[in-house]
């Protein structure tokens, strides 16, 4: 409260002392500019020590002063009394602030010296907002709802433009507006400029309301794309108006529709082209990391300007540039540059947004533009509101016939109420040519009123409406591991259920596209290093290890064990020992499991893993002080990177409905190997009579693995040199293997041992299947070949399963493994055949 008063005061003082004289100075300066000799002569009278050269710096100075004022305005708006800000949306407050500032300027000048001019808006303020919106677009959400968004953006906008224009014309013909010099085409032109929902206003309002994500993406995506559409529509109608009514025939109308398509899609494709360029560029900016972030902005802006130059849709161009490049650019660039881009993008977009709203307010304080026509203005407001509602319900009704989860009525209400108009409409209105449209000023003032009405009134009432209707809110966005985990599990479940129901077969071409994307586009646009994602993973690994170590230390200190502080070298040694022992524990398992197939390679790769792991663990503990919160974030990242992706998840990434086998072939192999291994094992144990009456119980898996372990635990015991009591109970079993060989007495480093629960040996075993990526690559199994193996297990009960396997083999053409692997596989197959016989 106190701070807000202080800020208001500060602002007032600033305005009075600084801006006012400046503005007066400015108005006086026009004389100076007109008469430059006057000053020159003055300067010649003697050698001046300091001169006041206002006109030198005038333009940049004014610009930067306004930016500064806008920043202050934003600051004071945000810091304002929280009762006000909780009711008023920020955008509305900024407009009101603009009224005040405009009033001051007008009071000083008796005319509005500062206006939001269309070129300024379209070339300097709008691009970065659109780029920001598209660059941070949640792609998965966007593409999974792309159909609905396109329907709303294209047909919804055309619907709005046509109905508003026609209804206004009808009312005009009926005499509701008195005497105006407007024809049908001009009405349609006006309808097209007022039709589009404005992304700037929508984001500003909806960001504060936190509606559920589907609703948000629908409104947001629509507003982003329909801006492009409305500009195109505007240009078509503008051309029609220039052409004049009588000369428009069917051919011209057809050309208009055709140009609509060309302009919209041409702009989109141009944007995609620039996205490819940008991605390629960031592939090779390794040595100029400092400026690589700049390329994102430069190329984005270039996409905008080029589209403008070619008279294609600039907004759609920069939109698709941002959407398409984000994945590759983020993967290619250095982590620091990614952060830079993120922050700079937000800075520019937020700044422009503030400027736009402020100037929308400032512009209004001008006697010149205001032309009042009650009928026209009120009817426009009414039609804009009503047709938005009708349009939304109409198109949603059609969409809901095809949507799995229909859009609810409440969401539809919010969507139609969220039809906020904004600066794009104003910019287009200000662009109108007064020669062709005599009532330009009326259109501008109507547009401004519509903007104020929607942004301020609808903006204010949006929040209560959302609360009152109990619209589903966005689940709050704490990073929760369990949620992340479950979401991934759900995805897998759904993918599996769809497979069981046999939904494969649809959209084979989208699957093809995904393959193509994986194999060629990623290959082309991503650094090889980024594709493997190795570096990033390792750093996250490293971080998590650091955090764990710090946690151990702090935990130890909290428990009063200060012994830890004495020497960190000892700690390192302990770590090494512990890890070594852990791997030693794992390794016997590996030997047991893999010795049949490929002992040498496994052994090699495991030891290399050990070597890899230790340096990241031996760390300088004292050099770090981080917060515990970081821990969660790291775990989150770690999971995000390592959780298997379900096919469903990827279906949404690039196309509306998509069936990919999986993004990552390695991953597919890995999962496949595991699954098949466990099945083979259950088969093996059944064959060998270890588990005679293969009764399937709830403990199915557990039992089998227990069996397996007891079968081999002799080897295991020998290797780990543990006493004879270990094999019996799972939990003690783990505990013992931990302590033996670890050689540490420091309780701090053995927190897990005190807790009662332990990972099952079963888990150790799966870990042993493919201990590292490198090892996993060398495994002789590929899904292809294992698919051949699968029926052996099945073949105990049915004979045609080999046929099945071969069919599935031909369906999927996987990459070839090396020849040696193949031979080993054959060997394995033959031994297995013998077994079977």
């Amino acid at each position, binding site marked *: 409260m106190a701070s807000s008063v202080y800020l208001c005061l500060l602002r007032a003082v600033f305005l009075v002392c600084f801006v006012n004289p400046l503005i007066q100075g400015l108005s006086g300066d026009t004389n100076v500019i007109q008469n430059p000799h006057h000053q020159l002569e003055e300067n010649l009278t003697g050698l001046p020590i300091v001169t006041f050269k206002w006109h030198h710096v005038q333009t940049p100075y004014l610009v930067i002063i306004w930016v500064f004022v806008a920043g202050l305005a934003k600051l004071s708006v945000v810091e304002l009394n929280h009762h006000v800000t909780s009711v008023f949306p920020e955008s509305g407050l900024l407009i009101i602030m603009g009224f005040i500032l405009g009033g001051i300027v007008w009071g000083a000048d008796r005319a509005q010296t500062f206006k939001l001019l269309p070129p300024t808006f379209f070339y300097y303020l709008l691009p970065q907002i659109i780029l920001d919106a598209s660059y941070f677009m949640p792609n998965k959400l966007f593409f999974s709802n792309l159909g609905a968004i396109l329907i709303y953006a294209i047909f919804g906008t055309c619907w709005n433009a046509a109905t508003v224009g026609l209804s206004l014309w009808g009312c005009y013909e009926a005499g509701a507006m008195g005497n105006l010099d407007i024809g049908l085409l001009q009405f349609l032109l006006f309808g097209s400029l007022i039709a589009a929902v404005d992304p700037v206003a929508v984001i500003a309002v909806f960001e504060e309301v936190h509606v559920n994500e589907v609703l948000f993406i629908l409104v947001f995506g629509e507003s982003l794309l329909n801006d492009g559409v409305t500009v195109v529509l505007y240009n078509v109608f503008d051309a029609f108006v220039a052409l004049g009514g009588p000369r428009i025939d069917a051919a011209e109308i057809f050309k208009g529709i055709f140009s609509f398509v060309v302009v919209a899609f041409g702009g989109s494709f141009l944007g995609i082209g620039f996205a490819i360029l940008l991605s390629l560029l960031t592939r090779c900016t390794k040595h100029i990391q400092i400026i690589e972030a700049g390329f994102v902005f430069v190329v984005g802006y270039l996409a905008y300007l080029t589209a403008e130059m070619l008279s294609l849709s600039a907004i759609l161009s920069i939109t698709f540039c941002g959407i398409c490049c984000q994945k590759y650019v983020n993967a290619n660039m250095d982590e620091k540059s990614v952060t830079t881009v993120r922050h700079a993008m937000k800075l520019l977009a937020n700044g422009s947004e503030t400027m736009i709203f402020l100037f929308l307010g400032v512009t209004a304080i001008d006697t010149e533009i205001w032309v009042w026509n009650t009928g026209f203005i009120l009817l426009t407001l009414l039609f804009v509101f009503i047709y938005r509602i009708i349009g939304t319900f109409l198109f949603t009704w059609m969409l809901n016939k095809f949507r799995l989860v229909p859009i609810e009525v409440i969401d539809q209400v919010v969507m139609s109420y969220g039809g906020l108009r904004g600066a794009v409409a104003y910019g287009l209105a200000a662009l109108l040519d007064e020669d062709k449209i005599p009532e330009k000023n009326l259109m501008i003032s109507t547009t401004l009123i519509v903007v104020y009405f929607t942004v301020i009134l609808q903006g204010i009432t949006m929040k209560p409406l959302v609360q009152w209707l109990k619209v589903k809110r966005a689940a709050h966005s704490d990073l929760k591991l369990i949620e992340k985990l479950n979401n991934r599990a759900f995805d897998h479940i759904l993918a599996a259920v769809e497979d069981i129901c046999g939904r494969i077969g649809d959209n084979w071409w989208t699957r093809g596209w995904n393959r193509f994307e994986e194999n060629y586009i990623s290959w082309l646009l991503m650094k090889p290093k980024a594709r493997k994602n190795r570096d990033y993973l390792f750093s996250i690994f490293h971080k998590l290890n650091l955090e764990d170590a710090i946690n151990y230390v702090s935990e130890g200190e909290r428990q009063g064990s200060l012994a830890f502080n004495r020497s960190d070298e000892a700690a390192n040694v302990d770590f090494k020992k512990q890890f070594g022992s852990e791997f030693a524990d794992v390794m016997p398992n590996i030997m047991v499991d893999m010795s049949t197939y490929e002992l040498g390679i496994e052994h090699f790769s495991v030891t290399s893993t050990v070597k890899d792991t230790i340096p990241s663990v031996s760390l300088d503990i004292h050099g770090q002080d981080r917060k515990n919160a970081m821990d969660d974030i790291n775990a989150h990242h770690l999971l995000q990177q390592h959780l298997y992706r379900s096919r469903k998840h990827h279906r949404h990434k690039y196309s509306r409905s998509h069936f990919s086998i999986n993004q990552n072939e390695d991953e597919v192999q890995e999962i496949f190997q595991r699954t098949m291994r466990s099945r083979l094992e259950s088969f093996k144990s059944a064959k060998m009579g270890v588990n005679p009456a293969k009764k399937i119980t709830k403990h199915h898996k557990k039992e089998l693995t227990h069996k397996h372990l007891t079968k081999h635990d002799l080897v295991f015991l020998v290797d780990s040199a543990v006493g004879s009591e270990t094999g019996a109970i799972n939990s003690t079993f783990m505990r013992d293997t931990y302590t033996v060989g670890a050689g540490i007495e420091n309780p701090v480093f053995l927190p897990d041992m005190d807790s009662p629960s332990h*990972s099952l040996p079963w888990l150790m075993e799966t870990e042993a299947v493919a201990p590292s990526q490198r090892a996993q690559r060398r495994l002789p199994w590929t899904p292809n070949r294992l698919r051949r193996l699968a029926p052996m297990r099945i073949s105990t009960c049915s004979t045609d399963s080999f046929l099945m396997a071969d069919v599935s083999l031909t369906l999927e053409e996987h990459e070839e493994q090396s020849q040696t692997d193949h031979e080993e596989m054959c060997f394995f197959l033959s031994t297995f055949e013998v077994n079977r016989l």
Partner: protein
Amino acid sequence: MGSRASSLLREEDIEEIKKQTGFSHSQITRLYSRFHSLDKGENGALSREDFQRIPELAINPLGDRIINAFFPEGEDQVNFRGFMRTLAHFRPVEDNEKNKDPTSGEPLNSRTNKLFFAFQLYDLDRDDKISRDELLQVLRMMVGVNISDEQLGSIADRTIQEADTNGDMCISFSEFTKVMPGKAIDITADLQNGA
């Protein structure tokens, strides 16, 4: 094929399944033909092997768990009715249920039942709790080999801590639903427009 398969299904069976699961007539016949094509033994019931023959399930890390979910406890076969009952979990939630039959209790596709289905995939020993071990098993299935057991263990601990309100180091079903408030809607598959 389709017509032959659906002719094996008697009309009154369809009616009963419809009542029980809420599937529409066409969905039932379509899924029956799928069921039939999966049923290699031609004995009107699916075994685990029948499911495992679906190639995509082999690359689904949770494939075997999901297959198990189709089988009632201790049984090795699932007939069409059981098959449909499991699939009914994945129908979209009907909010303002016009509840045809209030006596039938909660429909299979209710939020709670959807979540319970997911919960049971974790809960192997059916003690209505997800223990740390059970969580670890699922984690191990869903996570690549690059994560060490230790890291996975700490992730599991953290996950349990997030959900665990009564401090027993297990996630009970009520705790599970509490952490996943709006998520039930996600367990909805598109069974409608199949191939």
